[in-house]
């Protein structure tokens, strides 16, 4: 059975109610201070208590800081589709429908680079130590499959590169479009 985090309690461990017209003493004030410290100490283990970092935000790296639902660009002689990021994508609690440049896909159309595209971020990340995983792969495409590579060496605080690959040309060129979700994992906890 989980023990509750105690509320404001007195030395006997019971709630420190005050009777009407009774004088407030240092005991009550100290119990309030003690409770504040216990709550802060407890919640800081797993959550942010910094106003700038959004209080309550999970600090652990396995709690994703962002996710973007997208279609990859197309490649090839007549390809014109530059990809699309859907408006329910999020980064640090901001949705793409609130900030349209939250995620921007920039295809690399250099000959011989089919499948590569840069993802620009509208919010600068605290550092470049993060990981992006595209869930929902391998995708089935005509006669084959498609994966997305996240190259760690491409990371900056404001962009990274993804590369579609697979065992058939359709995988690289973006035919047989299917929505996928890229998730950004990052440790935002300061040293404890």
């Amino acid at each position: 059975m989980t023990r509750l985090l105690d509320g404001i309690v007195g030395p006997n461990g019971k709630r420190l109610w005050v009777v009407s017209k009774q004088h407030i003493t240092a005991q009550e004030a100290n119990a309030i201070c003690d409770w504040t410290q216990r709550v802060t100490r407890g919640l800081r283990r797993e959550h942010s208590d910094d106003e700038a970092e959004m209080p309550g935000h999970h600090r652990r790296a396995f709690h994703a800081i962002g996710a973007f639902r997208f279609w990859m660009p197309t490649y090839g002689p007549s390809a014109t589709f530059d990809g699309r990021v859907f408006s329910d994508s999020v980064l640090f609690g901001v949705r793409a429908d609130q900030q349209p440049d939250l995620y921007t896909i920039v295809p690399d159309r250099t000959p011989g680079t089919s499948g590569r595209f840069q993802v620009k971020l509208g919010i600068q990340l605290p550092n470049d130590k993060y990981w992006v995983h595209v869930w929902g792969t391998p995708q089935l495409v005509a006669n084959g499959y498609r994966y997305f590579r996240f190259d760690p060496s491409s990371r900056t605080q404001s962009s990274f590169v993804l590369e579609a690959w697979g065992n058939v040309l359709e995988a690289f060129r973006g035919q047989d479009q299917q929505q996928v979700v890229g998730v950004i994992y990052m440790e935002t906890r300061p040293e404890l």
Partner: protein
Amino acid sequence: MRKSIEQFVAGEPLPAAKINSLVGSSEEVAIAAAREHNRSGLHIHMRFEFAIGVFVFDGSWALEFGDRMSLLSAGADWIEVAIDLSDAALVAPTTIGLIATTDWGEECVYDTPSVSGRTVTTKIYLRTSRRSPTGCMVIAVGRRRDE
């Protein structure tokens, strides 16, 4: 949850009702927090993930960042990792699994995790159908005891 925005005025008596409002609010916070956390602030229920390690190859494999996970040793196509259970033990040795993917997006296989005291170790094989990987993200999922 009730919002308690109490203001005390300097030089005036401290009304019992305002103090009691704070006491009551603290109780509500405790009840709300206890739905997801134990009294020390750790999550109490089964979480889909409880540890992570991002490993990057730059001449040799190293842990770039992580939580409750460390690198024990590494070879050309494998890494051996340790997962720290010091804040909560597994319900049973079998209540843990890994999701490990290389930078190519392919999942890795791993040896059956070995539990010894408050540490789990396992070897992850970084074999891909493409070029050698330069990164690997490992997420541990499992059920731990409420302590």
